[in-house]
C-alpha cells in the first residue's frame, strides 16, 4: 500500500498533531506515504465559491502530480478530499473543461487523466488495512472509555458523489474505534455539522452549533470525541474555550482527539510522537487512563 | 359479592349498536360485566311495551344503543327510535318510576371506546340509584301496578296510533290540512296519556278483584268523582261492567278486552 500524501494547508499550517500522528501510525500498518513534490493548495474553499475554474485547476494539478507519481492520492483533510472528489466529477462530466485545464497543466509537463483514485483515511484504515489488522496492532487497548465519533460531513455527506461511508448511518470510524478497544455508541447528533463552515461569516454561530453538539456528547456520558477532520478538530478542540464562553457553560469540557492519535496511543507509541501536546481540550485525564492501561 | 351489582339489559341494533359492542371487544376495551345485550336488526323494532315489560320484571336498567344519524344503514325514519323512547319515558314518569333507569345512546359503529364509556357510566348511574324497587321477591306493589298500567297504555290502540302519527301530524298537519305544532301535540299527548293511564290502573285493579268506586278511589288515591268519570267512559268502551250492587254502591268488574 502506497499513497501520495497530501496533508493539506490546514493541517500543515496549524494541525500538526494530525500530520504527526498519521505519519507515525500509517507506515506501521504497512501504508507507505510518499510526499508530493510541488503540490499546492487544493483550492477549497477559498476558490471554490468565487472562481470555480481556478479551484478545478488547483485540484486537478495536485491530482495530476499524484498521477505522475503513479500513486493514488491520500489527502489528510476532509476538505481537500471533497475538493478532489468534486473536481474529479466535474472533469469527468465536462470533457471540455478537462481539456482546458490540461492545456494549462501541460505547460508544467503535467497531465490529468482522471485515473487517479482519491483515498480517504477512513477508507485506507477501514477498507484497505482492515479492522482486524488494526486490532492486531493494538498493544495498549483503550478499554473502558466511551467515545463519540465524528467523521465529519465533507467525507460522508458529499451530495450524490462517492462517499466514504453511509451518509445517514456512518459506521467506519466506530468500527475503527472498537478495534482499539474503545466503546462507541450512536448518538443523535453524530452526523451534525461542527459549524466550521460558518466560522468566517458568523463565528458565534459556529461556536453555538459546536457547543450544542458537545453538550449532547457530554450529556450522553461520552468520555471524549474523536474525529478525522482538521476543520472539525479545530472547532471542537482548539476553540473549546471560546465555545464555553459562547454557551455560558464553563463546565463544557470534552476531550477531543484525532483518530490517528488514539490509534498511536493504542499501538503503544509515546504521546509526544503523536502531537498530543497540541490538543487544547482537556485530554490529560483520558491520556492518563490510557497510559495506565 | 359485596355491595349492590345492578343487572342491566342493553338493546343493540345490528348495524351500529351490536357492531360497536363487537368493536369494543375487538379493541379489548374493558367494561364491567353487569349488562346483557340483546340483538335487534334495528332499534326501530323496539316496542315501548317490551321495555316496560322487562322493567316490571325487576331489571335495574335498560340501555338502548342505536346508530348516530348518518351512520345508519336503515337511514329513513330513524327518528322513530327517539319518538318511542320519549313516549316510554313519559309513561315511566307517569308511573312514578325512575326514568333514569333507561337511556338511549347514539353511536357510530366505530366508537368502541365511547360505547364502553357509556356502558360504564350507565352502570354507575344505576348503581347510584340502587336496586330497582321492582326487583327481588317483594316488589313495591303500588309501583308494580303503575308500571303495568303504563305497559298497558303502551299497548293501547289509541296511544299507539297517536305516537305513530306524530311525525306526520307535525310535518304535514292533520287530516284537514291544519298545521299541528309540537307543543299542541304534546298537550294532546299529555291528556291522552293521563286518561289512558288511569283507565288502565282501574282496569288492572278491577282484574284483581271487583270493587266499588269508593274502594277504587281509596286504593288508587284518586278523587272518587274522577274515578266515576273514568268508569263511565270505560263502560262505554266495554272494558268494565257492574258485577253486582252492594247496598247502594255498584261493584264494578273488568271485562276481558277482546284482542
Amino acid at each position, binding site marked *: 500500500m502506497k499513497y501520495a500524501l497530501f496533508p493539506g494547508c490546514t493541517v500543515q499550517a496549524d494541525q500538526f498533531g494530525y500530520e504527526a500522528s498519521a505519519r507515525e501510525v500509517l507506515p506501521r500498518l504497512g501504508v507507505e506515504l510518499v510526499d508530493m513534490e510541488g503540490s499546492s493548495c487544493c483550492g477549497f474553499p477559498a476558490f471554490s465559491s468565487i472562481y470555480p475554474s481556478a479551484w478545478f485547476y488547483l485540484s486537478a494539478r495536485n491530482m495530476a502530480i499524484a498521477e505522475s507519481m503513479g500513486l493514488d492520492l491520500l489527502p489528510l483533510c476532509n476538505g481537500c478530499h471533497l475538493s478532489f472528489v468534486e473536481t474529479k466529477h466535474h472533469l469527468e462530466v465536462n470533457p471540455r473543461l478537462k481539456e482546458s485545464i490540461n492545456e494549462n497543466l501541460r505547460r508544467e509537463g503535467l497531465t490529468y487523466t482522471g485515473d487517479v483514485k482519491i483515498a480517504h483515511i477512513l477508507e485506507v484504515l477501514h477498507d484497505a488495512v482492515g479492522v482486524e489488522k488494526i486490532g492486531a496492532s493494538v498493544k495498549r487497548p483503550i478499554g473502558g472509555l466511551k467515545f463519540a465519533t465524528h467523521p465529519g460531513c465533507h467525507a460522508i455527506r458529499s451530495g*450524490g458523489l462517492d462517499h466514504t461511508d*453511509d*451518509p*445517514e*448511518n456512518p459506521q467506519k470510524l466506530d468500527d475503527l474505534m472498537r478495534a482499539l478497544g474503545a466503546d462507541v*455508541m*450512536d*448518538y*443523535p*447528533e453524530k452526523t451534525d455539522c461542527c459549524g466550521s463552515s460558518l466560522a468566517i461569516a458568523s463565528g458565534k454561530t459556529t461556536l453555538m452549533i459546536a457547543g450544542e453538539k458537545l453538550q449532547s456528547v457530554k450529556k*450522553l*456520558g461520552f468520555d471524549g470525541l474523536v474525529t478525522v477532520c482538521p476543520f472539525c478538530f479545530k472547532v471542537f478542540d482548539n476553540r473549546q474555550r471560546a465555545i464555553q464562553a459562547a454557551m455560558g457553560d464553563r463546565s463544557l469540557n470534552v476531550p477531543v482527539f484525532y483518530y490517528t492519535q488514539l490509534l498511536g496511543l493504542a499501538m503503544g507509541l509515546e504521546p509526544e510522537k503523536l502531537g498530543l501536546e497540541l490538543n487544547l481540550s482537556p485530554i490529560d485525564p483520558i491520556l492518563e487512563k490510557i497510559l495506565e492501561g | 359479592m359485596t355491595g349492590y351489582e345492578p343487572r342491566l339489559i342493553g338493546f343493540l341494533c345490528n348495524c351500529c349498536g351490536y*357492531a360497536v359492542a*363487537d*368493536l369494543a371487544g*375487538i*379493541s*379489548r*376495551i374493558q367494561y364491567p360485566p353487569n349488562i346483557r345485550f340483546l340483538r335487534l336488526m334495528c332499534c326501530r323494532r323496539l316496542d315501548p311495551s317490551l321495555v316496560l315489560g322487562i322493567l316490571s320484571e325487576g331489571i335495574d336498567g335498560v340501555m338502548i344503543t342505536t346508530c348516530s344519524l348518518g351512520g345508519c344503514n336503515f337511514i329513513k325514519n330513524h327518528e322513530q327510535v327517539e319518538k318511542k323512547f320519549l313516549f316510554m319515558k313519559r309513561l315511566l314518569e307517569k308511573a312514578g318510576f325512575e326514568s333514569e333507569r333507561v337511556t338511549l345512546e347514539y353511536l*357510530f*359503529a*366505530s*366508537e*368502541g*371506546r365511547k360505547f364502553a364509556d357509556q356502558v360504564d357510566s350507565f352502570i354507575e348511574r344505576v348503581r347510584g340509584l340502587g336496586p330497582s324497587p321492582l326487583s327481588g321477591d317483594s316488589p313495591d306493589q303500588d309501583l308494580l301496578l303503575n308500571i303495568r298500567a303504563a305497559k298497558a297504555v303502551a299497548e293501547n290502540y289509541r296511544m299507539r296510533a297517536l305516537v305513530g302519527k306524530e311525525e306526520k301530524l307535525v310535518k304535514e298537519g292533520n287530516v284537514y290540512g291544519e298545521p299541528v305544532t309540537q307543543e299542541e301535540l304534546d298537550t294532546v299527548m299529555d291528556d291522552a296519556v293521563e286518561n289512558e293511564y288511569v283507565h288502565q290502573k282501574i282496569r288492572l285493579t278491577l282484574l284483581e278483584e271487583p270493587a266499588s268506586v269508593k274502594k277504587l278511589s281509596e286504593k288508587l288515591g284518586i278523587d272518587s268523582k274522577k274515578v266515576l268519570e273514568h268508569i263511565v267512559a270505560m263502560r262505554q268502551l266495554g272494558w268494565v261492567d257492574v258485577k253486582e250492587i252492594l247496598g247502594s254502591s255498584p261493584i264494578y268488574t273488568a271485562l276481558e278486552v277482546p284482542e
Partner: protein
Amino acid sequence: MDESVLVIGGGVAGIQASLDLANRGIKVHLVEKAPFIGGVMAQLDKTFPTMNCCICILEPKMIECYRHPKITVHTLSEVTEVGGSKGNFKVKVIERPRFVDTSRCTRCGACIEKCPVTVPDEFQAGFESRKAIYIPFPQAVPYAPSIDKGSCLHFGGGGCIVCEEACPTGAIKYEQDPRTVSLNVSSIIVATGFEQYDPKEMGEYGYKRYDNVITPLEFERLVSPYGPTGGELTRPSDGKIAKRIAFIQCVGSRSHRPGIGVPYCSGICCMYAAKEAVTIKEKYPDSEVTIFYIDIKAFSRDFQNLINKARDEMGVEYIRGKPGEIRENPLTKDLYIWYEDTDTGEIGRKEVDLAILSAALLPRNENTRLAQVLGVDLDEFGFFKVEDPFLSSLETTRDGIYVCGCCHGPRDISNSVVEASAAAMKATTGTRLTAEGSGG
C-alpha cells in the same frame, strides 16, 4: 365447456371478482401464491373511513369464496404459462404442495407445537415467530397447516420427521409433489395487489436502524387484537406503551430524488394515517399523535370527516412539513424528528416514542415475471399497463386479460372492490366502450 375465468391473486379484489363471477354462475379458478387467501387486507386492523374491523368483514367473504361451489381456490400456486387467446386461453398453473393432507388433518395443532424450527412470522410483520409448519392466523382460509419448505428441516436435509410423528392422523405427506394444472378459461383477471415500499432506502429516517421506527403494516399488526401484542401499542425497543407517536407521510411517495422512491402519490396513506391516529387516540386518549404531511388528500366520501374527527375532536396534531431526519437517543431509544413547519417557516424538533413511516405502495416485484407469462405490458413503474386509461381502464394490453385493484396503481379497498366487480363484468361480456374494439 362452461364459461370460466381465471383470477390471479386472492386478496380482497380477487375474492370480490371471483364472487361476482361465481354468483352469476360462472366457473372461477382463483390462483393465490400464499397458502391462504385474504391478501394484505387480512393483515390490516381496521378500514377507513368507517373504522370497521378488517378481518371481521373480510372473513365472511373469504369463507364464502372458498366454499363457493363455482370457485376453485388454488393456494400455493402460480401461473406459469398462458397460451391461446380471448375466449380460449390455455393456462398452466403450478400448485405447490402443502405437505399436509387437508382431508386427514383435524387441525389439532400437534405438528405446529412439536416443530423444532422457528422463523420470523411474516404475517405478524416479523414481530413474532412461527414454526416451519404453520397456520398463519386464526381466521386463515383455508384453515389448514402447511409446511414452509424453505425453513423445514426435513427438506433442509436434516431428515427431521417430528411433525409426521406428532400427527395423530398421518396427515403429513412429505412426498407430495408440485403438480401442474391445465386450465381452459375464456378470460383472465389480474388482481395481484401491491407491495409496501421498503423505507430503508431513505436512510435519514433510520428504518431498521432505530427499533422504534416502523412501517404502517408493522403498525397494523401492533394494534391488531390478533397481533403480537394483543393490540397494545407497545414500542419494539422496550415494550413500553408508546404515548408520543408521529406519522411521516409520503415516505417513498411523491419523491423526485434520483434513485429514491417513486414520484406518484400512493393515494391511501393520508387516510390510513388518520385512521391509525384515531385508533391510537381512542385506545389511549392521553397519547400525543402528530402527522407530518405535504397535502392532506381526503378525497372520498366521509374521508374529510375522519380527518376532521382526528384533528378537531381527538386532538391529533397535523404539521405541514416533511421531516428531514429522524434520530435516536441511544439511551432511551426515543426519537427526535427534525422538521420545518411550512405554515410558519419554523424549524422544529419533536421528541416521540414511536414513528410510523407512511410508506409508498409499489407494484409487486413478481409483476415482471407474471407480465411475461401473460404477455402483457407493464408501465414505467412496474404496474400492469392498461390499454387506454380512459375507456379501457381495466384492460391490459392483451385482449381478454383484465386488471383490478392495486396491481395497476394504488387505490383503496372500496375502489378495489368496485373495480373487481367491473373487471368481472368485462371478463364475461367483453364489453368494450370504444367502437374500434367492438368487432362483432
